[in-house]
């Protein structure tokens, strides 16, 4: 019996391949994700291991909050006094110790613009040009180590991409205005030209200390032990002399820690991409179930014959399941290797764009193989369960009947089941969206399961909706497509269950993109409203990318522009209050002139903050039971505790405010936090926004290429850039599931053409041209795709609104234009899916088609 199944599959290769594609793509996504992220992690690990390979112990500043990196990935660990270095060197077991600085600085190109690769940071290190470079993870590619206040070394990637060589001049900017340096050397880190596109600016120690306001301070000390001294002994010895706010780790532990910090990012990317592989597979289940159902129906006579010659129901069921299993195994293996290729391709692409990884170490883990194969095979086998059960309903008598599979006995319960499932879906979604008593994880889970259930519910209901939808959506086609359009409409309505299942697969992808679109447009609307309400200045001053803090020096420079009425910076950093990490902002007394703040408690708050005042937003005050005069203690990363008193409470709009949970005066902020920087500064100018004012500001900021002057509208746009990137990424990833559903449409059409061979032959015989035949199939595909859109887009809009409500700070804003684009995308998807089946149909030999049995 298994042989019959295998031979049957071999005899229907095209169908098997088309079916398999529904799984291949999802599996490829999974295996590709694993390979890519594993390789990434291994590469990162290798870099850090080689960075610390000659270091027995590392002393670094210890942040009082978090793990030493803040939300933007910046280092917030405090620098410590250089005097520690001499003490360490004096320890009996220490052979050698060197101190260094690690910070952020951006390189500035010949055009006066910052050199950056996407969101990658500009890293800065110090080196000791006179030392033996024992600890130095950097290798010189050409030139020498930088020496003195006018020399710099840069990374090989920037040198080759921007055509810099030793002896050239390049700009760099840290705290103050841009300065020009002579390039003394070009370096690689751990033999990699650049990590993740980051640029390197390397100075000698004194220059770095000057540049980063760390005179007399160090960020790290690398230590080597005397021969025969274990690392643990060394670390224990160093611990005895460590001042507060510093820590020591073995080189190995430091490498592992840095690796794991970076890896948590890679793990997030992994989970994120895997989720989309999962969605593609979920759509694949619909496609496979539908394709196999159609094949089972078409093979009714074959199964009937098997029953007459002694096959049991169980054997018939097993044969369909075995078919699904074999398709699953083949598709999984193909997907596994396709994913490997995909990952290799992406690696090459990363190399090209300057995101270089240590070469030749693509990680193809056993876990990748096992998970890909298991998931693909199990999903396909589960998908074939439904058609397998249908096949058992075939009777021996079907061997002699015209091959019509009786509708499932469960079919009449369809609507009840659909409403049941939809009810459950709605309940779950409401719990997820509105029940604030449940934990976030459970709410997200409820929403996730609710979304899946709503897809299944609509898919169950779809057969009842298809006749009406097909009739309505096929009408325009019937008008413009003449007889072909009319026939196509009838064909789509002929087997509602089949059309419904085909459209349902497309529905899922369309629903998800619509939901994402609605969510994004709601979030954007809320944000823009918040800006409109609060942005009462004329210009905003931010960093080039809009979110990295920018030095205070640029604010001071902008002040000099003629016509500036007021300028007010908003500092930002992380701190700790009431035992939790909080965003601390610092404002100047004139903040009211550029930001409208809706005070509900306190008066002249900004002017009266002084050295111990703070203000918070309404919900923070409520959460911590704060009223005017309440004490708030904020701890800075260097461990300093600010004892503050509440001076005001404000009510921010739903889209948020420029302020963190706790806001203090800029004066206190600059005094308390290391390397204070502005998140934004806002300006009011005489004459408001004008070309002359913009030019005047840009003129003053000429030596601050990392700063950017923007009007309110430009500010909104640049702040939304991150959202746009995420949105586009989501669209791209979700389009994978739409491609999977395309294979569903292709399958259904190919099978329908096959089934209607005789009918198409008859139509051709009575005068339907090849063109008209193709058009008929195309129209049928479009009707199916439009049904998918008609089901998916409203469902997606509903889901988007519900989820939006769940996250709060959300305004209802339906992106009508985007949704119309999705409808056209569905039509185009239908057209693409129809190409192959339409060709097959139009090329049928009329004579053979008529004789076809």
């Amino acid at each position, binding site marked *: 019996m298994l042989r019959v199944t295998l031979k049957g599959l071999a005899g229907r290769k095209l169908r098997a391949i088309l079916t398999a594609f529904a799984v291949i793509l999802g599996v490829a996504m999974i295996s590709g994700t694993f390979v890519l992220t594993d390789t990434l992690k291994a590469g990162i690990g290798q870099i850090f291991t080689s960075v610390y390979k000659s270091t027995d112990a590392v002393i670094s500043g210890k942040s009082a909050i978090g793990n030493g990196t803040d939300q933007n990935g910046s280092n917030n660990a405090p620098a410590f006094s250089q005097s520690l270095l001499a003490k360490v060197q004096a320890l009996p077991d220490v052979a050698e110790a060197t101190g260094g600085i690690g910070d952020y600085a951006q390189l500035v190109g010949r055009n006066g613009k910052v050199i950056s690769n996407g969101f990658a940071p500009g890293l800065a290190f110090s080196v000791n040009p006179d030392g033996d470079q024992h600890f130095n993870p950097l290798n010189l590619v050409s030139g020498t180590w930088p020496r003195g206040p006018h020399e710099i070394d840069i990374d090989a990637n920037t040198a080759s991409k921007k055509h810099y060589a030793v002896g050239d001049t390049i700009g760099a900017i840290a705290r103050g205005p841009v300065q020009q340096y002579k390039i003394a050397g070009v370096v690689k880190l751990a033999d990699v030209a650049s990590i993740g596109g980051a640029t390197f600016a390397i100075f000698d120690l004194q220059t770095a200390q000057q540049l980063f306001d760390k005179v007399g301070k160090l960020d790290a000390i690398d230590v080597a032990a005397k021969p025969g001294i274990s690392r643990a002994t060394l670390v224990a010895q160093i611990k005895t002399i460590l001042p507060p706010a510093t820590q020591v780790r073995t080189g190995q532990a430091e490498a592992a820690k840095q690796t794991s910090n970076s890896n948590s990012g890679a793990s997030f990317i992994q989970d994120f991409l895997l989720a989309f592989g999962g969605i593609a597979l979920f759509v694949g289940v619909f496609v496979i179930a539908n394709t196999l159902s159609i094949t089972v129906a078409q093979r009714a006579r074959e199964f009937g014959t098997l029953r*007459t010659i002694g096959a049991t129901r169980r054997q018939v069921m097993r044969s369909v399941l075995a078919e699904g299993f074999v398709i699953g195994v083949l598709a999984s293996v193909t997907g596994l290797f396709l994913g490997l290729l995909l990952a290799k391709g992406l690696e090459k692409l990363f190399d090209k764009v300057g995101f270089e990884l240590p070469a030749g170490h693509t990680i193809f883990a056993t876990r990748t193989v096992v998970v890909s194969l298991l998931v693909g095979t199990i999903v396909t086998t589960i998908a074939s369960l439904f058609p397998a059960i249908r096949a058992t309903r075939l009777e021996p008598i079907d061997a002699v009947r015209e091959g019509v599979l009786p509708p499932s006995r469960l079919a009449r319960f369809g609507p009840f089941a659909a409403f049941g499932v939809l009810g459950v879906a709605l309940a779950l979604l409401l719990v997820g969206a509105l029940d604030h008593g449940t934990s976030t994880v459970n709410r997200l889970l409820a929403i996730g399961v609710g979304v899946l259930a709503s897809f299944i519910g609509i898919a169950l209901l779809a057969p009842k909706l298809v006749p009406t939808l097909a009739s309505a959506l096929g009408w325009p086609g019937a008008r413009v497509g003449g007889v072909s359009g009319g026939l196509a409409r009838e064909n789509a309505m002929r087997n509602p269950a089949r059309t419904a299942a085909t459209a349902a697969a497309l529905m899922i992808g369309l629903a998800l993109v619509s939901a994402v679109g609605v969510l994004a447009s709601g979030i954007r609307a809320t944000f823009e409203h918040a800006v409109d309400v609060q942005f009462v200045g004329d210009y905003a001053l931010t960093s080039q990318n809009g979110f990295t803090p920018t030095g205070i020096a640029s604010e001071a420079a902008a002040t000099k522009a003629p016509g500036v009425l007021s300028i007010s910076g908003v500092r930002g950093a992380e701190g700790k209050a009431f035992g939790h990490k909080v965003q601390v902002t610092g404002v100047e007394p004139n903040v009211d002139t550029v930001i409208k703040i809706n005070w509900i408690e306190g008066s002249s708050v900004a002017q009266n903050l002084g050295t111990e005042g703070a203000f918070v937003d309404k919900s923070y005050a409520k959460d911590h039971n704060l009223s005017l005069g309440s004490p708030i203690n904020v701890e800075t990363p260097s461990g300093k505790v600010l004892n503050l008193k509440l001076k005001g409470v404000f009510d921010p709009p739903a889209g948020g405010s420029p302020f963190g949970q706790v806001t203090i005066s800029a004066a206190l902020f600059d005094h308390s936090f290391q390397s204070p920087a502005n998140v934004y500064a806002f300006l009011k100018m005489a004459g408001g926004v004008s070309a002359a004012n913009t030019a005047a500001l840009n003129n003053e900021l000429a030596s601050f290429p990392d700063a950017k002057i923007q009007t309110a509208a430009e500010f909104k746009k640049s702040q939304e850039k991150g959202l746009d990137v995420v949105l586009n990424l989501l669209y791209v990833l979700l389009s994978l599931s739409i491609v999977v559903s395309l294979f569903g449409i292709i399958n259904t059409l190919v099978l329908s053409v096959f089934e209607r061979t005789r009918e198409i032959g008859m139509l051709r015989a009575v005068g339907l041209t090849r063109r008209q035949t193709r058009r008929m199939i195309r129209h049928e595909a479009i009707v199916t795709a439009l049904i998918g859109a008609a089901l998916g887009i409203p469902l997606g809009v509903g889901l988007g609104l519900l989820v939006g409500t769940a996250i709060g700070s959300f305004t209802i804003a339906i992106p009508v234009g985007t949704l119309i684009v999705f409808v056209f995308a569905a039509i185009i998807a239908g057209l693409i899916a129809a190409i192959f089946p339409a060709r097959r149909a139009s090329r049928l030999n009329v004579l053979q088609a008529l004789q076809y049995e």
Partner: protein
Amino acid sequence: MSSNGAVVIATDLTRRYGAGDTAVDALRGVSLGVQEGELVAVMGPSGSGKSTLMHILAGLDHPTAGTVSIAGETITNMDDTALTKLRRRHIGFIFQFFNLLPMLTAEENVTLPLSIAGEKVDEKWLAELLGKTGLKDRATHRPSELSGGQQQRVAIARALVSRPSIVFADEPTGNLDSKTSGEILMLMRDSVDAYKQTTVMVTHDARAAAIADRVLFLADGKIVQESTDITAEDVVRVMQGLDS
């Protein structure tokens, strides 16, 4: 009607399709027995109920009333599993449209009932069958590479391979030209003679009826005439009488 040595016994079979005003009685009380080694032809005009009768005898359809037994076992109330097991042991089928599996070779199609039942192939018997049906040179061909007559020979070999108690043939020549039909009928007669293969055949081919040991004429769901040793000409005459 029951007698010793009967392989198939049907008693008072009625079959009603639908209900109420639109109800159609396809069989109205048919009783018959088929003796071992006998070739029985069932004839009748379209709508006489002959196909229904065969489907019920073979357990493909259920009678509204009456019983059928095959090889001593009453099949009318058997559940699906028992019926399937009975088919494996006792029943072979030959269809009008051959119903071969297109992806299997001729030989694989022939042995399919055995592999489904998980039984070993008796190679000698298989060789004998392939020889008898003239398929020795065609054993590795697929149905699409065979003529209609050759395909039906494969189907006949498949029906015989498990040495069933009874073979049911449903219009075995209905899809063949007249020369090929003659060859197929000779083969069926031959298998009855050579292997004592009890066979019931539904047909409206007068020549098919002429090779039968016994011909049952059906009209309006009843057996109206039963003849032995009848010629093709006689059959045509009887049929014309039934039609008018």
